[in-house]
């Protein structure tokens, strides 16, 4: 039983790490820029969230498959096969959870008051310092929310993973796949245990997120401290 659990965690964590970097940078890049076609571009970014996983799986096969655009290049030049390895599962998980991370990051950056960034500039800060000291810390709660949602989604990925990574026990069999095939073969005990595990992991992640967000933002966003501490002149 531990095989699928460890693999699922590995796949989801790496997928989310990829999303965290790419989606955050993309959201930051697009946040305060207006250009023709931005709407269309954002529609494509959100697309994996609404399309059936089988469509994504098919798309990924076209790109990563042995005769696919990227797959063929990697196979011929580096003797690297992506499909039906756990790397394909990472690709699938990263693609389906990307929109969640992107949307959260976008909302988080949009919520940062622009005059704070301006103030930091007049105080002599370079653009990178403005980003690291002002924008990022203020967008932080929203970014963490995006990470947790993306993680939960990546953990539960089934359809696209099955298509590109297959169901190879010990190699590409993640929890959702293991549950499906356990039920299929009549092993209800294993299915039940895995269901409990994945539900537990998801609930823990979401519960912790809510708790943390409330604690983190209380002091500096709402000034929510006991009245007695406030002193007015």
């Amino acid at each position, binding site marked *: 039983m531990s095989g699928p659990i460890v693999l699922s965690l590995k796949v989801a964590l790496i997928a989310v790490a990829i999303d965290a970097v790419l989606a955050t940078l993309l959201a930051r890049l697009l946040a305060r820029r207006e250009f023709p076609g931005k709407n269309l571009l954002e529609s494509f970014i959100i697309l994996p969230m609404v399309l059936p996983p089988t469509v994504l799986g098919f798309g990924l096969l076209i790109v990563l498959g042995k005769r696919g655009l990227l797959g063929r290049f990697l196979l011929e030049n580096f003797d690297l096969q992506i499909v039906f390895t756990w790397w394909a599962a990472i690709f699938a998980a990263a693609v389906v959870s990307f929109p969640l991370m992107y949307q959260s990051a976008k909302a988080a950056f949009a919520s940062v008051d622009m005059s*704070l960034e*301006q103030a930091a500039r*007049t*105080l*002599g*800060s370079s653009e990178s310092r403005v980003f690291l*000291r002002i924008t990022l*810390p203020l967008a932080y709660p929203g970014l963490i929310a995006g990470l947790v949602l993306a993680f939960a989604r990546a953990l539960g990925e089934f359809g696209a993973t099955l298509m590109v990574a297959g169901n190879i026990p010990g190699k590409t069999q993640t929890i959702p796949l293991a549950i499906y095939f356990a039920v299929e073969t009549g092993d209800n005990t294993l299915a039940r245990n895995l269901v409990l595990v994945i539900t537990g992991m998801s609930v823990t992640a979401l519960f912790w997120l809510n708790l943390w967000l409330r604690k983190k933002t209380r002091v*500096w966003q709402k000034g929510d401290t006991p009245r007695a501490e406030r002193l007015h002149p």
Partner: protein
Amino acid sequence: MLNASIRKELPGFSVDIDLRFDRGILVLFGPSGSGKSTILNCLAGLQKPTAGRILLDSRVFFCKQQNINVPARQRRIGYVFQDYALFPHLTVKDNVLFGLAPGPDRCKKRRGHRMSVRETLEMLKIMHLQARYPAQLSGGEKQRVALARSLMMEPDLLLLDEPLSAIDAQIRRELQIELKKIQRTWEIPFILVTHSHKEMDALADEVVFLKDGQAVDTADWTLPAGGTTDRWGRAWPPVLPGEDSLTGSTIHGFRNTAAMPDVPVK
């Protein structure tokens, strides 16, 4: 010496103004939407003028012809924003020190600086607030912290955008006196934007009256009895809380020296 001529095209109207100004407090006075904040943003380097030149002493900040546009971070122009723009996730102490290079010595008085961090905080009476977050401060305290933060980096010019508009009448008066005192101590030019008649009276050494982005001649600019409305149909002159209606009064002359006795420098 500030020597600026700024032209900025905005949707709807354009700002076109010449400012020549040496010392003391220059008040830009005009209704909302007359381009006051745009002028401050252009001076600070947060907005790029369409044309013109901005010089402070011997430094060129912006020149259309020579294609110079010094970024805001290199201008050393202090800016106190209308809503103070204090960093909500940093304590008062970290807010105030934000403009100083990080390091163990950053609280020490630097060569050529007028005041140390401690002296500035004491002068502004915010020493005891160091550990608080901005959300825990009153309007007047936020104002002082914002002021301390921009003074800390030894600016050559200080811009204040409606600094006292969100503060109630009593504390506003107190802060007006303090502002004047700080200006006299620091001896750098202040440019203050306001639409409050009383504030102009209390603080201005020089006044520029603005209307639709242009400086207007003051001599024939009187307020019609009964008031009028501004571009958005709001009552003009605005009646601020704690202030009597200004209707029917005449705007005072260009150089304002009589309204308030100068506060002696310590």
